[in-house]
Every structure is written in structure tokens, then in C-alpha cells.
């Protein structure tokens, strides 16, 4: 596979309204350098295609039973032996209900552009494409892809975790109307503990992108007991004040709905109710930012 001419995608979601202004198509890309404990899209973490299994959809028809690796057995309930799976996708192709589903499809760049442009008549001045994931910049093809989108004169947005290659960042900035830049925690130790990497590189890249003229909105997930401390709130405010092209902060209160998704990968439900922040915590974060003259929205 020529990786700069294709993109590996988990989902193309049309008629999206919360990933930027207007009507947008959000493309979720596969592969992420972070492994956040609260990840809402765990199927986007690995760069490889993966088998998902949703037991709620299984009707026990047994079409998947022919697997050469004997991944599927019926005892009588359907049991998936994941460590035997070669991720070949044959079972998913046979499954009538899509209880078995392969996450990760490769598109050539023109193919993907055409899919995004299906909704061109609805985008108007403001709408367009948002790349999300996963980490969009983890795939080199995003640069060329966004160049194609810009030449179709649609708005382009990238939601990034910021842990990205400098060269790719430099090349992509001219084709991105705005970044939704995740800053999950300003405390470096905690950041490493919960996401697997330090935040130093992320904050460096953010400031570098800012100097390149990249417009940004910070996306700050708020997780009770993890980053609900006032130091973090004022650090975010101070960070925004240092940036020239940052338009404000979106607060994303943690919710536990995404947790079930990790069970589709055969993992434990990673949702934790105790992580849901209280309204007071959300307000406190928002007030701190507002007092520092930082524009804030709560999503």
C-alpha cells in the first residue's frame, strides 16, 4: 500500500453539526499515538484493520463458523477467540447483521474526496470536512487529501491530539482552516499516566502551529478526579492567552457512552461513571476561562 496516496478510515459520518460550523462530513482516521484511558473511539487507536463484534446484533446464524482459525464457536452462545484472529475479515463479509464488522477501510485520496464532496451543496460558506480519529496527522496522506479538499473550496478542519510529526504539521497548515486541538491535561505527569505520552511535544507543536498562523480552538476534555483541578483550568487560560490565533476553548465534559465501544474489540468497558464531572466543575472551568477573557463553549 502506498501510504501517502491512501487513507485508512474507520468511519465517514455525514450531517455532522458539532465538529465545526455549518453542515460537515467528519472522516475518522485510523491510528493514534496516544492511548487515553477514556478513549471514546478505541477502534481508531490501532493503525491496522480490526474485527469488531457486537453481541447485541448476533442472531446465532453460524455463518461465521467456517473460520480457518476457529475464532468463532457456539457454546451455544457465540464466543469470539480473539487471540486466534488474523483480522482477515472473511467472517465479517458473511455476517448478515453486521454483528461482525471490520473497522478500517482504505480509500484512495480521490475516492475519499468524492465521498466528502457528496454533500457539497449543503456546506455553504461555512460547512465542509473535518478530519478526526484517531490522529489524522499520523497518516501522511492527509496533507494531499486536504489540498484536494481546499481546491474544491470547502472548509477544512482537523481535530488533532497534537502529538504529531513536525514536517507533516508544517505541510498541512496551509490547507487547514482551523484545528480543533486537544489539550487533555496541562499537568505533564498526569498526561503521561493517562494517555501514555508526555504533553510537552503536544504543547510545543501547538505553539509552533500558532506561529505558522494556524487557527485553533482548544478541545479540553474534563474528567472528574483526573484533571478537575483549578491549576489546570488557569493553565489552559494562560495557554490560550499566549497563542495569537487561538479562538477559544470547547469544554468536553466526559461521558461514559463511548465505553461500550471497547467491548466490541473484546476489551473491558472502559467507561467510568465516576469520571463524569459535576456541573459545578464544568462551571468552574468555564468561569475561570471567562475571567481570563477566553471565549468558551461547552459541548
Amino acid at each position: 500500500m502506498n501510504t501517502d496516496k491512501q487513507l485508512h478510515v474507520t468511519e465517514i459520518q455525514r450531517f455532522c453539526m458539532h465538529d465545526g460550523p455549518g453542515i460537515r462530513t467528519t472522516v475518522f482516521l485510523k491510528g493514534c499515538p496516544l492511548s487515553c484511558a477514556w478513549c471514546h473511539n478505541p477502534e481508531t487507536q490501532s493503525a491496522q484493520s480490526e474485527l469488531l463484534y457486537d453481541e447485541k446484533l448476533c442472531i446465532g446464524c453460524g455463518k461465521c463458523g467456517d473460520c480457518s482459525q476457529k475464532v468463532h464457536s457456539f457454546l451455544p452462545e457465540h464466543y469470539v477467540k480473539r487471540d486466534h484472529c488474523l483480522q482477515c475479515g472473511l467472517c465479517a463479509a458473511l455476517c448478515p447483521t453486521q454483528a461482525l464488522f471490520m473497522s478500517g477501510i482504505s480509500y484512495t485520496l480521490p475516492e475519499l474526496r468524492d465521498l466528502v464532496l457528496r454533500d457539497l451543496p449543503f456546506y455553504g460558506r461555512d460547512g465542509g470536512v473535518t478530519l478526526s480519529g484517531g490522529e489524522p496527522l499520523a497518516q501522511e496522506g492527509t496533507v494531499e487529501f486536504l489540498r484536494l479538499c481546499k481546491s474544491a473550496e470547502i472548509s477544512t478542519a482537523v481535530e488533532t491530539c497534537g502529538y504529531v510529526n513536525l514536517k507533516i504539521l508544517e505541510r498541512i497548515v496551509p490547507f487547514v482552516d482551523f484545528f480543533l486541538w486537544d489539550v487533555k491535561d496541562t499537568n505533564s505527569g498526569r498526561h503521561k499516566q493517562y494517555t501514555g505520552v508526555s504533553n510537552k511535544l503536544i504543547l510545543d507543536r501547538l505553539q509552533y502551529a500558532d506561529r505558522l498562523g494556524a487557527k485553533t480552538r482548544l478541545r479540553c476534555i474534563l474528567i472528574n478526579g483526573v484533571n478537575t483541578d483549578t491549576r489546570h483550568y488557569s493553565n489552559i487560560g494562560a495557554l490560550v492567552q499566549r497563542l495569537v490565533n487561538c479562538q477559544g476553548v470547547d469544554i468536553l465534559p466526559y461521558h461514559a457512552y463511548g465505553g461500550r465501544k471497547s467491548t466490541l474489540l473484546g476489551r473491558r468497558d472502559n467507561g467510568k461513571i465516576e469520571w463524569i464531572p459535576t456541573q459545578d466543575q464544568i462551571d468552574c472551568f468555564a468561569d475561570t476561562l471567562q475571567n481570563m477573557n477566553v471565549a468558551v463553549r461547552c459541548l
Partner: protein
Amino acid sequence: MEFYTQNNLVRPVRLCETTRGFAYDSLNRKYGLDTLRVSSVSLDSIDRFENLSPIEKYDCCIQYIAMQAPIRICAGERISGSATLGNSIHHLVPATYGGKPVFGSISHLTVDFETVLKRGVFGIRDDVLASLERHKNTSRERFLRSCHACIEAFSLWHGRYLQALSTEEKWKDNYQNLLQVPFKPARTFYEAVQSIWFTFAFIRLCGNWPGIGRIDQLLGPYLKRDLEQGTLTLSEAREILAHFFIKGCEWINGQFIGSGDAQHYQNIVLGGIDAEGKTVTNEVTYLVLDIIEELGISDFPVSVRVSRTTDERLLTRVAEVMRYGGGILAVYNEDLVIEAMCEDGYSLEEARSFANDGCWEVQVPGKTYFIYSPFDALQVLQQRTLGGYEGNIIYKTYEDMYAQFKQDITCRVGEIASALRGYFEDKTDPDAPWVWKTQMPCTIVSLFEQGCVEQGLSYLEGGPVYNVHSPHIGGLADVANALYAIKKIVFDEQRCTFLDYMRILKNNWEGEETLRQYVLHRLDFYGNDCDAVDSIAAQILSDFADICRSFEQTHGYHFPGGVSTFGRQLEWTSKRLASPHGRRKGEILAANCSPTPDSDREGATAIIRSYCKADLKKLASGSALDVKLLPGNVSGSDGVQVIVGLIRGFATLGGFFMQPDVVDTTILREAQQHPENYQNLSVRVSGWNARFVTLNKEWQEMVILQNEHR
């Protein structure tokens, strides 16, 4: 005083407390319940009534209604005139003999208010007298005498209001206005509003349900002049116009009537261009939007004519008002509608004047007789093309099957066309002109339809300038999906033989769950922007339109195709068999041009794209698309952008008519439990909207079903 919303948006306050209180009372059934007190006038005192001819009987009905209908003047009303007889709400002429209603009444038309405004009812009376002169001693004379008698009756009713209003100083404005209108031409905005209302109220009092039409075009010039001369302010104009909308709620009574109590076809059309191509949108357009935004009155469904070039201000206001939910606002893509009407034989000027029949089927207002004949294409496929799954019919290819289906549709449309023959006298000489049969008298609406008085023929007897009979195809998404499923499963993928598939369907999918699940989950159906199936829907519509056209011009009738189910997908359920697209017998299927419930996975933009792939300008009667939005999708200023984007896309891609609604099914479920708290919660049902709690259980469930899977 709170007016419902489908989300936590707070409705703005612009109107004065008196007006808001009047609206609140009216919405909460005060006047509707009063209207139910007297259902009809009695004709029992008329000597030898049975011996009268139908038209003589009709004239008696109208005269007695005018003489005896209760007069109602509501506290604080700025305009007067009330349709106060309960049987009018039931689509009957509210006059009984021996306890039984004598005549039914007319709907599905928008009458000619322009002539009333400009020439007054006296102007119409002059036309009646002139026509009487021309048609003296002919068969048409009797109808014209009925016209004259009905104007006399109207005048009598008018006189009763004048007298009632003359008694108190506080009704001075209403009294003064009624001295001028509707019998003489309106001179001011206030008079014009009163003129339309009073005429509308009388037509409704006599049992008919006309639409209003292009109210901004009708009233705009009066408002402009008053504003320029400084005799009226915009906020005063808003108050006056608000009373028009509030008075229109005088039939709200909370009764369950199946499909809801709000459907009296009082449709209003806003915006667009006039016959010369000039923009109509004016201050009245915005006042109407202000009023429904503030009061949430859903009784006049409002359709806005948009195009690729509609200005941002109007689109933004439309989107802002749509966000509250209630399904009050819908949009026409006027570029396409005008093109469609031109293709159907109207002049460009007439096409540009389009409004609708009170629902969404387009017509030239005040000039058109309209009727439609619905049929279920899915039943045609199941019962005729596939022979009821009995296994007697086999197709070797998809193309063979489709060719037979097309022939079956031709047959079905032919049946509808031959029913037209029933409107005319039998004739032996094929070259002799067609002669209309005498129909039920309907003089009141005939007075306000151009052509009737001039020709001396009633609305039902070919009087109007245009006569339109439209076959409406129903079950579009389902029949396209069904054909596609057979194509994929039997012919392309060869998962089973044609006869096996028929047997499976005959057994209602019994024991074939794996295949059924495959069909449901692995095929992309109409509404997902998938060309393979959308092209089948487009082909069906194109062929259907051609078939209709082949029957046209048989006797001067317009015979354009249209697409609708309205609520018929409910009554068709019991007649439909299991369906090839994975559906069991008894499931409620698609509405109008919308996808089969629970088959659309890609969101509103994909639905609109699927719909717009058909060449919709071939169907001049119209094709409606319902789009359901969640309150969360359209909240905030971003939400306005989203709705504007949807409307722009719909217009760019060549849609015909779109009725978006913002619905939270949790709220609907709650309203089922506690109807008392949700008396005015409105939802779009189809071409109309209804107060949700007045729908019966079946209809409520259907509305919830259509909204749930998004």
C-alpha cells in the same frame, strides 16, 4: 403564558399582552369549544323542502346559515367574523333537514382573495349580473342565480356583524373597517386583513376549507403604502396580522379525529417571485414569521418559496423559526416548481403565481379545481407484478420484472384516468364536446374561483380556469427498495431462486431470519445516497410521470403525477403483504418521498440527495419529503446554519417540497402519558401539522416511528 417548543429555546415576545392572552385562550380551545355548541342550522321549517332541486336546497342552506349562525365577537379582537357552526369543522355544510346534514363541502383549493381585495364582493356581484345577462334562458342561469343569492346571504351575515359591532364604542375600528370591506375594495392594510379574514370566515362558516395562498403578496402593497404615509407602524401591523392567525384557531377543540384537529388546509405561501418575475418577499413575509415564532400557532401551515438565490435574511429567519419545532414551516424550491408547471402546460406567468391547494400540491390559486387519486405502488408490485407471491409468475431477469411492473402501473393509472369519464355526460358522437354532469352544489367557493361566474359553471362542473386531476403514487421508497432487494438477492447475488424468494415472502419470512437480516443490514436502501437503489426510485417516478402524461389532454384536464401517502401508509398496512426488502406483513412503511422507517443510516443530507436524484420537475402535482431533525441538531446559532444549509442543498439539488420538523420523541412519549400538559404541542404529520394529543393512538405511534430512528 407559555407557547410550546420542542426544545429549551425561549420564544421571543413582540406582541402586546392582550394579543398574547387572546392567542393563549384561542389555542387552549376557548373558541373551538364555543363553536361546537351549535353544530348546524335547521331547515325543518321550510315547506316541502324535499321537493326542492339540489341547488334550491343549497341556496336555502346558505341563507339560513347567514341568518341564524351565532354571532361571536371575542374580547379584544382586532378583526371580526367567526365561523361558529360545529359541522363546518367536520367538512359539512352546517345545515340539517330532519336532523341530517344536507350537503358536503369543498376543500383542497386556494380561493381568489385578490379580487375580493381589489374589487370587493360588489365587484364579483357585478360579474354575476353580467354573466346572468349573457346566460339568460340557458342551463347555466340557475347556477348564476344561486351565485346572486349567496352574495345576498353573505351580505345579510355581514349586516348582522355590523349591527352587533355598532353597539359598543370599543368595536369602533372593527365596525368602520367592515363598513368598507369586504364588499368594497380595501384601502388600508387593516382593511385588507379584515377583508380576507371576513371572506375566509364566511366560506368556512359554510363548511368549506380553503387555503389562504400568498398572503405577503396580497397584503404587502397595502402595508407598504401605510408605512410610507405614516398611518401605521410595523408593530401595529404585526398586532393586526396576529389577530388573523389567532382567529384562525377558532376551531381548536381538542377532539380526537384520527389524523388530528389542526388540518383544515389553511395553508399560507410566502416569498418567491410574482408573475413578472419580481421578488414578492416584503415586510408582511417577516411579520408572518414573527407571529408564528412567538405564538407557535400551527393552524396555518406556512410554505416558503425558496430558490438558489433566496436572500440570506429570509433563509435565516425561516431557519430560526423552524428550530422551535411544530412543523409549521415547509419550503418549495420555486425554480423547479415553476419549471414543472410550465412543462405541464401553464404559461410562465401562471406558473410563477403558484400557491397550493391548502396542503402542498401546487396550483394556480383562485383558478383551479383540484382533486387527487392516491394509489399504493407497493401493492401494485406485490399483488399484480408478483401475483401475490403465489408462484404463478416467474421473471428471468430484473428487466423483465421491471417491464411488467411498469405495465401494471400503466394499468393502475389508466383506471384512475377512466374514472375521470364519470364527471361527464355519456356521449354517442365522439366529436361532440364533453358535457359536465351536474354535481353537488358548491356556489360559495365557486364565487371565489375565477372562471366559474364567467362561464356559469360551478367549481365542480368545470367552471375554474384550470381543472386538475392528479394521480398520486404512494409507497415510493418501499417499492424501489423491494425491487432492489429482488434484483440483488435473486438476480445479482443469486442467494436464492426467484420462486424461493416468492415462497419466503408468502410465508412472511418465517424461518428465514438469516436472509431477512442480510437484506435489512447489508443492502443500502433508498435514503442513503446509494445510486444503485436511488436510480430505481428515479426510474419509477420518471416512468410514472410519462404514463400520466400519456393520459393527459383527454378532455382538457391537467393530469399531472404526484407523490404522496399523507397518512395512508397506515391504512395500507393491512392490505400489504410481506415485502422483499425485509419487511414483515403489518409493518408501517414509508411516508411520501421519505425512506422506509429504520432504513436510513446516513442522515438528512443523504435523504435529500436520494430524493433529488429523481427528475422531480416531471411531477407537476408535487412530491413531498419529510425531514426529521433532533432538537440537539439545530440548537444555537450553529443550528440556524445547519437548517439554512439543508434548505440551500435541497434547492441546489432540485428538490420540490421539503417539510422539516424538529421533534424530540421523548417529549412525544411524555405527551402520550400526560396529554393535559401538551395541549398545543404540534407535529408535522404530512401536508399538515396537528396537535399531537389530538391524533389517535395509531397516528401518534406512526409519528413517533417516523421520528425515532435517526
